[in-house]
């Protein structure tokens, strides 16, 4: 079984899907000859040509808007937004148009579009090359949001996303692109959207995370194991639809929950999970629902002293786990 990085897994999956289904096209800024600024589409232009791998003008609203149109006329576009930070010019097309086409047309039109975008901090990207933007989209009915954390998951989830008949936002953490390697089978497997993964079983505290934080959560769990704290770690993988059952079952078991997200704290994605647990798992809670999050400043600052201050590390998760376990 091949061992590869997250970016290699994504690149190969895009190539596979384009070979399998000629209605799949890739479009975005610099996705052609350059192969994307992170090389996620490297080689696709050479193999599939400029008709199916389109270097677009520097216009995100157009990238998404044209993908919507192409998707109602027989194609399955997989647009790339160069950085998640630059998805906002396309916000109206995503929220007002892409998400609502099926509902507003009473089910007579639909948009099989998968928007890929690199997100996340810790890469010296500063305010505009570091953002976590998932919370803006997980709030929107009609959209699905996926955040893979391993090469294996990335492949299975990206396949499902591209084959899905509804729009999917697929956010890839930049820091994981080359830092994480893993086994990826040749087989045409898929991972259904909407299923979280228990990546470590435990009894005392549940830690919920996704993306880069899913790795840090596992590291934190290792670090406290010696102290006799048994941590269950869940990698959510799909943020919407949320796998309520897996999350709630775990918290019913442990009675304690830490939610980790890199984004700004106030109104971040994890707030919804806390709200769900506080309503539907209240009777099982043996302690407060603790959030470990990014601070409430407008972006990840550039200077490494400030960036280190902003970013979550495993130790901060450890501290939260200890405190909650002792509660």
């Amino acid at each position: 079984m091949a061992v590869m990085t997250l970016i290699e897994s994504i690149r190969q999956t895009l190539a596979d899907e384009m070979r399998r289904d000629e209605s799949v096209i890739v479009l975005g800024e610099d996705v052609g000859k350059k192969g994307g600024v992170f090389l996620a589409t490297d080689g696709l232009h050479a193999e599939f040509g400029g008709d199916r791998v389109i270097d677009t003008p520097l216009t995100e609203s157009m990238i998404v808007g044209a993908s919507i149109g192409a998707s109602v006329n027989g194609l399955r576009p997989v647009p790339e937004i160069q950085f998640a930070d630059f998805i906002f010019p396309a916000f109206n097309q995503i929220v007002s148009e892409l998400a609502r086409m099926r509902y507003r047309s009473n089910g007579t039109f639909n948009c099989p579009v998968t928007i890929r975008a690199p997100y996340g901090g810790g890469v010296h990207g500063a305010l505009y090359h570091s953002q976590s933007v998932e919370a803006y989209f997980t709030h929107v009915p009609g959209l699905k949001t996926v955040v893979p954390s391993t090469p294996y998951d990335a492949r299975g989830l990206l396949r499902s996303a591209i084959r899905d008949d509804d729009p999917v936002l697929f956010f890839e953490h930049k820091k994981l692109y080359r830092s994480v390697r893993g086994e990826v089978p040749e087989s045409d497997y898929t991972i259904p959207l909407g299923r979280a993964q228990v990546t470590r079983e435990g009894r005392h505290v549940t830690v919920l995370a996704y993306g880069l934080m899913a790795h840090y959560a596992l590291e934190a769990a290792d670090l406290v194991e010696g102290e006799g704290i048994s941590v269950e770690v869940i990698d959510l993988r799909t943020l919407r639809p949320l796998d309520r059952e897996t999350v709630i079952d775990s918290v019913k078991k442990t009675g304690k929950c830490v939610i980790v997200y890199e984004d700004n704290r106030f109104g971040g994605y994890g707030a919804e999970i806390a709200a769900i647990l506080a309503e539907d798992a209240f009777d099982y809670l043996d302690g407060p629902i603790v959030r470990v999050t990014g601070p409430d400043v407008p972006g990840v600052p550039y200077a490494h002293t400030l960036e280190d201050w902003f970013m979550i590390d495993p130790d901060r998760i450890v501290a939260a786990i200890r405190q909650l376990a002792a509660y």
Partner: protein
Amino acid sequence: MATTKERPPSAEARALGAELGLSAEQLIEMYRLIALTRAVDERMWVLNRAGKVPFVISGQGHEGAQVGITYSLRKGHDWVVPFYRSVAMVMTFGMTARDIMTAQFARADDTSSGGRQMPGHYGAARHNILSTSSPVATQVLHAVGIALAAKIRGTDQVVVTALGEGASNQGDFHEALNFAGIHRLPVITVVENNGYAISVPSALETAVDDIAVRAAGYAMPGIIVDGADVLGAYKAGREAIERARRGEGPTLIEAKVTRLTAHSSDDQQTKYRSAEELERERERDPLPRFRAQLMDAGILDEEKVAAIETEIKAAVDDATDWAEAQPEPDPATATRHVYAEPEA
């Protein structure tokens, strides 16, 4: 659509027809479409004043350009991507008076949205009429994307989309025409310029008199047509559609039209338009002008016009009664179609 029996066309009729490659029957069909749309539209306002429908937004004054420009499309093969004034455009492309009225009454079987959207948000999958939203100008990018797919898939389809001159100042318009120009896509963008964005007059919308001049910035032809001249609009539309079909790329058409009604049933246009202006604008109504033109050419006469009127009145009455009698949407269906539904 039903036809009325024809006399052999006069010399003028043959002339008018020949010049444009239109038969007398086709000219009459175009007239009927404009007159029918107008009658449907007027009925909407009657129903609104009667308190039967809470909202109306309509296309009175725009119908001539819409019918003319889209008449040469291939129904069921090509695409149209309308906006809220495109009543005549969508009726030319297959929607019926009943379709329009079920939307007005927000009935369960409304083709456009099953009563989920406000009236004027047209759409019909079976006719390749894309579902309309409210945010303006977004549809131009959708039309461009449909054209991109047509080109990549080699379907030989042409796409016509429309928007107002106010909407054409939105960023999406710029990004859409820019992309269409680069890839020479088979898409025609029609700017229906009626001189107002609700109450905002042209002078405060743009610094140019003609939106069409912007076409040069995207290396595509920019054509201006008089929206009251149905056959002029037809000619421009046909040429653009043929050019697109030949793979020669996109066209921007600006139709100078007039808005004969308030912006919508929520608007009070006398607050920002003078009585004189409103009076003057009536002369730019395409319907009487086209009727006179066809009568001069001997293609229509009093008798035929009357026959068509009767026929149209019956169609509008039927559509109104039928639509009103349809069931309202069942709240139990409100959660459907957020995402694909698993096959039963």
